[in-house]
């Protein structure tokens, strides 16, 4: 019995923050239209990686529900998206959750945390091809963030707190 408790603890911890508290069984039954989520391969995602709107600064964060440091920094991206929306800043959260966990983990997570930023899923196994296209220096670790507008582009393979994130974004908006 003691062992069982230990095993359960280990399993729960292995799912990282936040996501582990979700009762996915209950929530997946609620398959509502607002629950729909765009799932892209890299080619399809690429339109998000080059300026659509010349006035805008885009903040693209690569994350996953199973990535604890990613989940930790999500509120900062949400805060940024809210606070800087009238400064032409748009946050897009690119989830790298496993496709088979979209229904069981990602959607319940999004619902529970009521994320305001646009969330899309990148499902493309050929990472050796697409990772260097996002940034040639990216080793592939997440969290990772790309900030760009029509004038410049910067890539960060690291975690942020709100202040650090805001400082970076401020360099893009004049």
């Amino acid at each position: 019995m003691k062992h069982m408790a230990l095993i359960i603890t280990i399993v729960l911890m292995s799912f990282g923050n936040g996501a582990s508290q979700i009762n996915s069984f209950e929530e997946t039954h609620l398959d509502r239209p607002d629950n729909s989520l765009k799932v892209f391969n890299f080619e399809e995602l690429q339109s998000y990686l080059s300026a659509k709107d010349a006035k805008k600064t885009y903040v693209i964060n690569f994350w996953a529900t199973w990535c604890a440091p990613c989940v930790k920094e999500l509120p900062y991206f949400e805060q940024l998206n809210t606070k800087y929306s009238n400064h032409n800043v748009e946050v897009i959260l690119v989830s790298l959750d496993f496709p088979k966990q979209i229904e069981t983990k990602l959607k319940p997570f999004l619902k529970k945390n009521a994320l305001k930023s646009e969330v899309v899923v990148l499902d493309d196994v050929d990472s050796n091809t697409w990772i260097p296209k996002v940034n040639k220096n990216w080793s592939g670790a997440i969290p990772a963030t790309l900030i760009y507008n029509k004038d410049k582009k910067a890539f960060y393979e690291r975690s942020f707190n709100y202040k650090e994130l805001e400082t970076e974004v401020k360099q893009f908006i004049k």
Partner: protein
Amino acid sequence: MKNTFKTLLAIVAFIATTAFTPVGTGYDIGDIATDFELENIDGTMVSMADFKDAKGFIVVFTCNTCPYAVAYEDRVEALNKKYADKGYPVIAIMPNNTDVKPGDNMAAMKARAKAKGFTFPYLMDKGQKIYPQYGATKTPHVYVLEKTKKGPQVKYIGAIDDNYKDASAVTKTYVEDAVDALLVGKEVPEAKTRAIGCSIKV
């Protein structure tokens, strides 16, 4: 003139902040890897030097808690089964800070290795001294080393293969291709590859 200087300064500052974001300061292809002495799940200390007959090593930075690492567990075991006898054993190293990821502590590593029947050493990078030397940034992150007179030389860095989701749908077996090439004295066809992984927890 003053303005030109200012502009230059701004450009330099911009380059300094953007170009030198933390990118691997670790090994590149051709570098000589330093040996280590790390605790294995069986309580013994393991070094590359212990493997007198090895021609090289498949060093895999991996852990229990990263879904990508978990997706590759069976494939890492298969690599060891296939290549240990040919002179390229797998040495797995767990690089995470176990205070941050208790699911990667020694007890959990032992449990996982037992459950999965790992036949390779699964070492704890205690104090997190080894992974930065290699330049590993994530789990899983593979380094194929070939023994040379100068020491274990880095011949391959990167992913295990090109499909984390489905082992049966793999089209490129990067690590196998690297070791196969080394075994017949050829150049590694693709020496550096990239894959998504979990950042190493510090």
